[in-house]
């Protein structure tokens, strides 16, 4: 019998614990709910004052732009898309990691997603909110933005052009924002009910009671809920892939050398996941420390995310190489010129910043020492975010700035309004997070509990095959 025995320690090494310190179910409720219940900390007001001021800066920049015109931005012929579309794609891409964690990892039954999915989904929503600003104001007359949707109205007197990828993008991004919000809210319902049940004052009880829609956690509720969650995960998985595919169509369906390429959809999706996971690392490293949930968001979670960063970063690097190969192999001289210009032209500084941040930096994660080192991963995740911003900028600016005729060559320079608007979107992003972390459970409590019980059961079954029955007792 001895050779059939399973050593529990070996099992633990293969799948390290996702919750450390063996907290009880109540401890988990407590750890996650407490930060919504304690008196507001002075630091929270300081954080809100800073991020709120930056958001006001965003608001004033947008007001100035709407009042004056798109000319306050640096985009002009030949670079008609500048920082606006760069930042749009940047923010949308960041959002994708949230959906990947909440939906794709759910379908693949990756239990490690449970501690980080709520946070990552919030990141998706807030990033999409930042992204949405850009196309909205870039239309020039945002008060006419409803023209983008097929709403019958007298002043347009015609229909949208469904043959244009820009219109596909309208449908993709608005669907993505809506479905992400629904998915996030459905996940929140049982956890809002927890805060309702713990409420000490009538006002809290009423507010969280309404927000949780009267959730009772009955077996019937959970049955329909789990089905809905599964279906939403199943819908979000192709949705997230479609969104960045369609965003890449904005470029790939045009005939601009450097954009007109079939590699764009998979390359954009990999890049989006890459940048999004980096953003989750940046935020999670701070949040788990501030909110003291290191036992729920463990090194296993961080290390797994770093592995995803390594994998997707390598895919992105491979895509850069493929683009260059095809530019040469196609024999198309415009295509070839664009790529040589990208690496050696006036934007070479941007290109090589992108390559160092996106291709070289994630390779450090091959080493376990580095991918489990918190200060190192924090710095590296910021490098990846910078690199991925440069990727979008390089794709847009270098493909446009040297038009087919040398007489229409130019060089894009951002204006102060460009810079402050982009800076302002970070203010909005962080302000939304500041509110989220104050009023809502940042970890999916009921999911973590379900995962703990499931893990407990699996442990319970393992020692039954061991020769030593005393292990069964230890497992409890």
């Amino acid at each position, binding site marked *: 019998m001895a050779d059939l025995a399973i050593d529990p320690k070996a099992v633990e090494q293969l799948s390290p614990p996702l919750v450390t310190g063996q907290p*009880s*179910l*109540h401890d988990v*409720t407590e750890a996650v709910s407490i930060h919504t219940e304690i008196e507001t900390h002075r630091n929270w007001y300081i954080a809100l004052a800073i991020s709120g001021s930056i958001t006001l800066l965003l608001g004033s920049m947008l007001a100035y732009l709407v009042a004056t015109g798109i000319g306050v931005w640096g985009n002009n012929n030949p670079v008609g898309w500048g920082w606006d579309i760069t930042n749009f794609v940047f923010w949308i891409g960041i959002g994708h990691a949230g959906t990947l964690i909440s939906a794709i990892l759910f379908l693949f039954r990756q239990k490690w997603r449970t501690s980080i999915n709520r946070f990552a989904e919030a990141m998706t929503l807030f990033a999409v909110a930042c992204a949405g600003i850009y196309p909205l104001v870039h239309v020039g007359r945002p008060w006419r933005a409803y023209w983008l949707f*097929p709403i019958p109205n007298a002043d347009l007197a*015609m*229909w*949208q*052009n*469904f*043959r244009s*990828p820009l*219109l*596909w993008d309208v*449908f*993709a991004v608005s*669907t993505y924002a*809506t*479905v992400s919000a*629904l*998915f996030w*809210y*459905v996940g929140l319902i*049982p956890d809002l*009910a*927890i805060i*309702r*049940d*713990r409420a000490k004052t009538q006002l809290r009880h009423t507010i969280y009671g*309404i927000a949780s*829609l*009267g*959730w*009772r*956690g*009955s*077996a*019937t*509720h*959970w*049955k*329909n*809920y*789990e*089905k*809905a969650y599964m*279906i*939403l995960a199943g*819908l979000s998985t*192709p*949705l997230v892939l*479609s969104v960045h595919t*369609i965003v890449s*169509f904005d470029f790939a369906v045009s005939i601009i050398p450097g954009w007109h390429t079939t590699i764009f959809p998979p390359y954009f999706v990999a890049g989006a996941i890459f940048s999004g996971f980096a953003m989750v690392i940046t935020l999670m490293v701070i949040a788990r420390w501030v909110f003291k949930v290191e036992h729920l968001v463990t090194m296993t979670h961080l290390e797994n995310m770093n592995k995803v960063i390594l994998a997707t970063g390598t895919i992105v690097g491979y895509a850069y190489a493929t683009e260059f190969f095809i530019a040469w192999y196609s024999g198309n001289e415009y295509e070839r010129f664009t790529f040589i210009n990208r690496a050696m032209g006036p934007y070479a500084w941007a290109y090589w910043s992108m390559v160092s941040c996106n291709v070289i930096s994630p390779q450090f994660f091959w080493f376990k020492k580095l991918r489990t080192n918190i200060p190192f991963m924090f710095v590296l995740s910021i490098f990846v975010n910078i690199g991925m911003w440069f990727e979008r900028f390089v794709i847009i600016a270098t493909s446009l700035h040297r038009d087919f005729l040398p007489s229409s060559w130019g060089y894009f320079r951002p204006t102060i309004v460009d810079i402050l608007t982009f800076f302002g979107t970070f203010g909005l992003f962080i302000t939304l997070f500041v509110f989220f972390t104050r009023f809502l459970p940042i970890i999916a409590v*009921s*999911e973590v*509990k*379900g995962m703990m*019980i*499931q893990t407990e059961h699996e442990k319970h079954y393992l020692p039954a095959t061991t020769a030593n029955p005393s292990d069964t007792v230890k497992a409890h």
Partner: protein
Amino acid sequence: MADTSSIHGVVADFDSPDTLLDAVKAARAKGYTKMEAYTPFPIHGIDEAMGAKPSILGYIVLCGSATGFTTAVLLQWWTGTISYPLVISGKPLFAFEFGFPVMFELTVLLSAFAAVFGMLGLNGLPRLSHPIFNYSGVAGSSDDRFLLVIEASDKKFDANETKDFLASLGAEKLEVVEA
């Protein structure tokens, strides 16, 4: 014997999902049919133990998907070919190739609406109040307690007898809850 019309049922409060599951099985074996469990997270196997039918949400979502897809096809076809035909870049007025992204997105959008609102509808939510909230320890059911309620509408229900039966299953707390 008190008038059962003012009673919602008897709540038995358990400390683990396993004891709850055993209690559900025992109650079924005893012949009770109208029961409901309240737990902080979904318990696997409880629907089978309670004899509950699988969720019909999938069919509702399928209707949503079909509506979304059909809407997208009709929208693009009608606006492009009937309402305002306009040739752009020599492309056809309507084709599934260029219409596909919008068809896909609207299918997903309406399916998601069907999934969320269908789930809320099947669960009877939003709802302002429910008799289970009259139970003094109801807050535990979202924390670390596992409740089983045998409802007064059950044919076999008798407040005292049911209470004794549930006590025999290892419930740590028992309470008759007002409707």
